[in-house]
């Protein structure tokens, strides 16, 4: 092999369908972890802010624990531990989906907590005053506003999540990066493949970050 190998980007086109499969998994993982993470994260945030001490403490511990371990270790943990508990082997893809949902819930919960705390306390009192229950106050008054205020931050976290999904590489799940690596090996052109996926990641993340910025300016005006 010559050391000043010319770049040959013609190998990209034939491997596009294969890379597309990888990208589809990356996007699927991102969307499931985002939806599941926001849902569980909101519950965690409510638990942290609740007046039931053991519940608040358990939620705080979970969030702090998840946030102090490298994601890569969490991925390895789940991949190792889930089969031990369930007694049957689990595919890397399923394991990745469970891991990311559980992990992102901790980060989304911090965002939702900030969002809930950004709603003036008087609104909660107002809800109670007109006879609403806790869940009614939360779901009709507090959470919609919290969600709206935090929309740009939730999107920013989703961009980070989208980038972090590349770490499933460690357990061999076939995401965009893994697909690029395999295609690179098949065509003996790893360099071009890495450059190409970097470009794909960049374009998607850059576009989404513009959108987050746009949302931020819009919600800022509305308030």
């Amino acid at each position, binding site marked *: 092999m010559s050391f*000043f*190998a010319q770049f040959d980007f013609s190998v990209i086109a034939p491997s596009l369908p294969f890379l597309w499969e990888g990208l589809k998994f990356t996007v699927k993982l991102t969307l499931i972890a985002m939806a599941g993470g926001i849902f569980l994260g909101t519950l965690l945030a409510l638990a942290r802010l609740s007046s039931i001490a053991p519940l608040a403490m358990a939620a705080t511990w979970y969030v702090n624990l998840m946030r102090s371990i*490298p994601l890569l*270790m969490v991925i390895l*943990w789940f991949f190792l531990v889930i089969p031990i508990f369930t007694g049957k082997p689990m595919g890397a893809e399923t394991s990745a989906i469970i891991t990311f949902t559980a992990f992102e819930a901790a980060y989304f919960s911090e965002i939702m907590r900030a969002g809930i705390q950004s709603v003036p306390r008087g609104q909660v009192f107002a809800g109670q005053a007109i006879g609403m229950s806790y869940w009614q106050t939360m779901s009709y008054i507090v959470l919609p506003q919290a969600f709206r205020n935090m929309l740009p931050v939730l999107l920013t976290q989703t961009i980070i999540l989208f980038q972090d999904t590349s770490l499933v*590489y460690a357990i061999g799940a076939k995401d965009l990066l893994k697909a690029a690596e395999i295609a690179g090996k098949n065509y003996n052109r790893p360099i071009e493949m890495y*450059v190409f996926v*970097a470009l794909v990641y960049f374009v998607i993340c850059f576009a989404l970050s513009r959108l987050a910025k746009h949302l931020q300016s819009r919600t800022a005006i509305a308030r």
Partner: protein
Amino acid sequence: MNYHWNWGIFLEQVKGGEETYLHWLISGLGWTVAVALSAWLIALVLGSLIGTLRTVPNRWLATLATAHVELFRNVPLLVQLLLWFFVVPELLPRDLSLWVKQEMPAKEFLTAVICLGLFTSARVAEQVRAGIESLSRGQKMAGLAIGFTLPQTYRYVLLPMAFRIVIPPLTSEFMNIIKNSSVAFAIGVLELTFQARQMQEDSEQGIETYLAVTLLYFIVAFSANRGMALIERRTRVPGYITSAK
């Protein structure tokens, strides 16, 4: 649940070697700390420079700094690492390229440090910029009004305040760089995550291994947190609200 516990595993010898598993983990810890601290130095110096440049009146410098931030923030860390390791050496002049690929000492370590340093520099830059922009406009005007040049205004008026304000977010970035150093396993740096995977495969005592490694990461990140809290307390500006405990 069917698992065979063996807490004595750490003192057992590794397969086909003299040392114990504990040796592996301690040397992994050493590499993790080395990668994180070296990268943090780059991130702090470069990030401060870039963050400052983003706020200067010169359009070209500001655009260049923005491009740096966008480039390093919008590509996953792992992909950046693979680019630095596999692609960048190909782009160098032929002799240099050969040297990097065949002779460069501690190639994996240096690649990880440069990559992680630049990746984090973009994040540090954003924090520093936010710190400078949080200062009231009057401070800059006051500096210029008493005859400071623009660099002097930054050096004596803006930056000393901005840096103190951004210590809490920089603490998070410092802890992030420790966690992110785990990605270096992908190019074969023998750091903690690499050793964890190796020990898990070798000893088949995964849970004990991961518990120990998780605890080690926790201790390192917590120490970093306390260290930064100390700096925060020492550099506190009287009259400002701070959260250092």
